[in-house]
């Protein structure tokens, strides 16, 4: 598809953004990501295991920064300070790469974003030259504030992270789409292909997902399903759907019938 979209200084071919968590092994991760057609691939930053298996394969050997645009996340951070430190470490880890996914989490029950800490972290990161793609709630006012701070994309949840419940908030997502001008990417909540299509049909610029692919019975096949679902949803959005009607409207002419 020639349909491109731009986030900050980056232009992407695919509107599907994928995570690398929860796969059985790195081999499966690599195959699923490849099948998804995604350009943007998220990763986490964690303490290196010291003194354990020094030849353990590294995610970056499978998901090469030369092939994919890596999007380090701040998953697991509960404060703005920890999120900012994680982004600085990620920038060092990826040789000066400034695109990050900011997420500051409230609690493990909901993994709902702590928007107060998120706003604080976003301000610091933007001031330090990061290009911030920000995981946030579906509150349109917060999305507008994050845009005003200078985030390059706002990424509201469609449902809680890892829940697979599908888009529970289409009206809020639509309101965000109508009131911010940076790309809007649904991040979290997609369970299956039709959920991704619904997000794209609403006019979202992209969808970020991890669990829906990684926890499918066949992740490789689901990665392909998601790739097609995103493309279908985007095409349908661009094509413009027919109006909904209350009653039937025959497709075949109602004149010229035999008697």
């Amino acid at each position, binding site marked *: 598809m020639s349909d491109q979209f731009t986030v900050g200084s980056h232009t992407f071919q695919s509107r599907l953004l994928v995570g690398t968590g929860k796969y059985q092994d790195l081999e499966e991760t690599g195959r699923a990501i490849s099948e998804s057609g995604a350009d943007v691939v998220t990763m986490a930053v*964690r303490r290196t295991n010291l003194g354990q298996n020094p030849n353990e394969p590294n995610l970056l050997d499978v998901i090469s920064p030369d092939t994919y645009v890596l999007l380090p996340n701040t998953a697991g951070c509960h404060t703005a300070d920890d999120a900012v430190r994680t982004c600085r470490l990620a920038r060092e880890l990826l040789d000066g790469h400034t695109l990050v996914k900011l997420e500051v989490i409230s609690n493990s029950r909901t993994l709902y974003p702590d928007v107060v800490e998120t706003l604080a972290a976003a301000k610091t990161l933007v001031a330090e030259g990061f290009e911030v793609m920000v995981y946030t709630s579906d509150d349109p006012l917060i999305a507008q504030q994050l845009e005003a701070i200078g985030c390059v994309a706002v990424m509201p949840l469609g449902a809680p992270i890892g829940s697979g419940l599908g888009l529970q908030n289409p009206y809020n997502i639509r309101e965000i789409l109508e009131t911010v001008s940076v790309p809007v990417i649904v991040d979290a909540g997609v369970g299956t292909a039709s959920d991704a299509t619904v997000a794209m049909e609403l006019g979202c610029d992209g969808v970020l997902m991890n669990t829906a692919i990684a926890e499918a019975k066949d992740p490789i096949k689901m990665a392909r399903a998601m790739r097609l679902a995103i493309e279908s949803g985007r095409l349908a959005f661009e094509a413009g759907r027919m109006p909904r009607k209350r009653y039937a409207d025959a497709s075949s002419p109602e004149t010229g019938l035999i008697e």
Partner: protein
Amino acid sequence: MQIEVNGKSETLEPMSVAEYLAHADLVGKRIAVEHNGEIVPKSQFEHVELRDGDRLEIVHAIGGG
């Protein structure tokens, strides 16, 4: 001296960050290092000396969403 590396206490001879990374078998690995809350660029590994009570965080990339 005693330093804390990734939350664990270690007793070591005085050394630089570069020497510590060699000691921990991390030379050439894709890692990033924070020393007392400040990033240590790779070019500075040899020049930053560890002192008693210092804290190091050594991180790498793993799967995540």
